[in-house]
C-alpha cells in the first residue's frame, strides 16, 4: 500500500512564456486552484508529477512543486501562505495583479 502523506497535496507550476502561476487539474493546467487534483498518498503524487513533468519536457511549464492542499466546500485551496499568494496574486497593488483579471493573459 502506498505511503500516506501528512496531508493532501497538489501541484503548482509557472507557465514558461510569462511565469503565470498554474495549478494541475484533471483538464490540464488552470489559473484557479479550485479544481486541482489532490493527491492523498505517495503513489498519487508520483502520478501527478509524471503528468506535470511531461509538460516541463514539452516546454509548457517550469518550477513544478508539490504543495499542501486544503479541500473544502468551495473546492481545493492551497494550504501554505506562499501558494495562497501565488493563487491570489500580490496582496498589494490589487488594482493591477490577478485581482483585476484572474485570467490575466496579456
Amino acid at each position, binding site marked *: 500500500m502506498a505511503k500516506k502523506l501528512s496531508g493532501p497535496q497538489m501541484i503548482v507550476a509557472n507557465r514558461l512564456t*510569462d511565469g503565470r502561476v498554474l495549478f494541475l487539474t484533471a483538464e490540464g493546467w488552470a489559473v484557479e486552484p479550485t479544481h486541482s487534483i489532490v493527491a492523498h498518498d505517495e503513489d498519487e503524487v508520483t502520478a501527478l508529477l509524471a503528468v506535470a513533468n511531461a509538460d*516541463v519536457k514539452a516546454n509548457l511549464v*517550469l518550477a513544478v512543486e508539490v504543495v499542501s492542499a486544503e479541500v473544502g466546500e468551495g473546492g481545493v485551496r492551497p494550504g501554505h*501562505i*506562499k501558494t495562497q499568494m501565488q493563487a491570489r496574486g500580490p496582496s*498589494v497593488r490589487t488594482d493591477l495583479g490577478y485581482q483585476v483579471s484572474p485570467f490575466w493573459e496579456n
Partner: protein
Amino acid sequence: MYAYDTFDHAMVNARVEEFRDQVARRLSGELTEEEFRPLRLMNGLYLQLHAYMLRVAVPYGTLNSRQMRRLAHIARKYDKGYGHFTTRQNIQYNWPKLVDAPDILAELAEVEMHAIQTSGNCIRNVTTDQFAGAAHDEVADPRATAEIIRQWSTFHPEFSFLPRKFKIAITGAPKDRAAVKWHDIGLVLKKNEAGELGVEVLVGGGMGRTPVIAKTIADFVPESEMLSYLEAILRVYNEQGRRDNKYKARIKILVEDTGTEEFKRLVEEEYEAIRASFIDVPAEEVVRIRQFFAPPPLPVLADEDAGLDALAAADFRFRAWVKNNTFAHKVPGHVSVTISLKPHGGIPGDATDAQMDLVADIAEEYSHDEVRVSHEQNLILPHVAKRDLVAIWQKLDAAGLGSANVGLLTDIIACPGLDYCALANARSIPIAQAITNRFDDLKRLEDIGQLKIKISGCINSCGHHHAGHIGILGVDRKGEENYQLLLGGSGEEDASKAAILGPGFDEHGIVDAVEKVVAAYMGERKEGETFLAAYRRLGPDVFKEAVYGAR
C-alpha cells in the same frame, strides 16, 4: 555622466542578441530550464512567485532623463505600469514576460543600460552615495571610482563564477550614506597628506543570516593602485572562499574564519605580486573618466529666496519638505532634493510610469538632466537651485510625490517580500503600509525625529533589517507570517547590528510593538537625542518592558 564608447555599445548589443537567441532556443525546447536558468540569471531575469522579474542595473544609482523616460516606457509597454527601486539602487520590473525580455534589453541598450551582472555569483552593481558629486561634505566624487570598478568588474573572466555574489559600495564623504560597512567590500575615498586621492578598504561586511560589519584592512590605497588591491582581495576570496555551503560562501565568512589580520596578510601578499602590473588604469584614463563626472556649471546663487520663504511660512507641508527632503549642496544657493517614494499607505520604492516621466521632466528642467536612486529607495535631483524649489514641490506634490518624510519614521526600506518574492517567508510591504498609516501625522513624525525602519521578508535581508534603528524581519512560523522586532542597528559610519528584542508578533502586533517602542523613546529621550542615541544609552530593557510588559 559616463557615456558608452563603441566597445561598450558593441558588448552590450552583442549580449542582447545572444540572449535573444537563448530565449528563442528555450521557447523552442532546444534548451531545458536547467540549461537556460543560469543564462537568464546572467541577464537579470529571475522567476518569482507570480511571474518573471527583471532587475535592471542603475550603475551607482545614476540616471539621466532619457534613461528614466525609457524605464517609464518599459514599465508601460512591457509591464503593469510601475517599477520598484531597490536597496541596490537598481530597478525591478515585477511582470515582464520571457518572450519580451530580449526586446526590453534591446530598449535598455539604446539608452546605455543593461541587466548584466544583476544576478549570479559575480561582482554586482557598485553602489554609492546618492548625493555624489553634489554633497557639500565629500572628498571626491565617488562615481568616477565606481565607474572604473564597473569597467574592471564587468565580464571579468576570473571573477564570473565566485563562491557567491559580491557587492561593493563606495562613499566619497566621511558621512556614510552608502552603507559601505555592510558590503563585501566597502571603500571610503580619502586624501593623504600630499593631497593624493586614495581609498580606505573595508572587507567582509554583509547582512543575511550572519550579519557582519566590515573591517578595515587598508587605511589608504592610492587610487592609482586600487584595482590591483581589489583584484588581490577577489583573488584570495575566489581561491579560498567556501563553495561547499552557500550559507558560508560569502567573503564575510572567509574573513571571520581566517581572521582579519591573516586575511589582510594574504591580500597584501597577492597585492605585492600583481601591483604595478597591467591591471591598474593609466593616469590619463582616470582623468578621461573623471571628465564624464565633471560638476555641472552651477552659478553661485543667493541662499535666500523670497518665494520659498513665503510658501514655507504659509504651508507647513512645504516647510517640512524643504527641511527634510533637501540636502546641502557644495555650490551655494543649491540643494539636492530627495523625492520620497514613501507615500503613507504606499509601497516603498515603487514608482508609476507617469511618475518616472515626471521626474525625468523635472530633472531635465531643474537638475541638469540628472536623477539618482538611493539605497533607501528614493529618487534624488542632485543639482537644484533653491529658487526653483517651489515650482518643483508643486509639480511633485500634484503627482503624489510630495511626501516630506525623508529620514523620518515613515521613510521605510522594505523588500518586495512575500507579495512578489519566491524566497520570502512573510510580506514586508503591508507592514510598511500599516506603519505609515499608523504614523500618518507629519507633526508627530517631526517630533519623533530621525528614525530608520527597515523591513525584510526573509533572512536574506534585502530590506536591511539588521541596519535598522528599528528592524523588522518576517519569518514563517508554522506556516503563518510572524515578525521579529530588532532595535539599534545602523547602516552609517557608526554601523551597528540590530538586536532582536524578544518574541515575534503577527502582522497587527508588530505595528503595535513599533508604536510602543517609539512611545518608550519619547518618554526617555533627552533634549535633542535621536532614537538611535537613546537606544545606545538606555539599552534594550526599557524597550522590552514597554513592548512585552514587566517580567
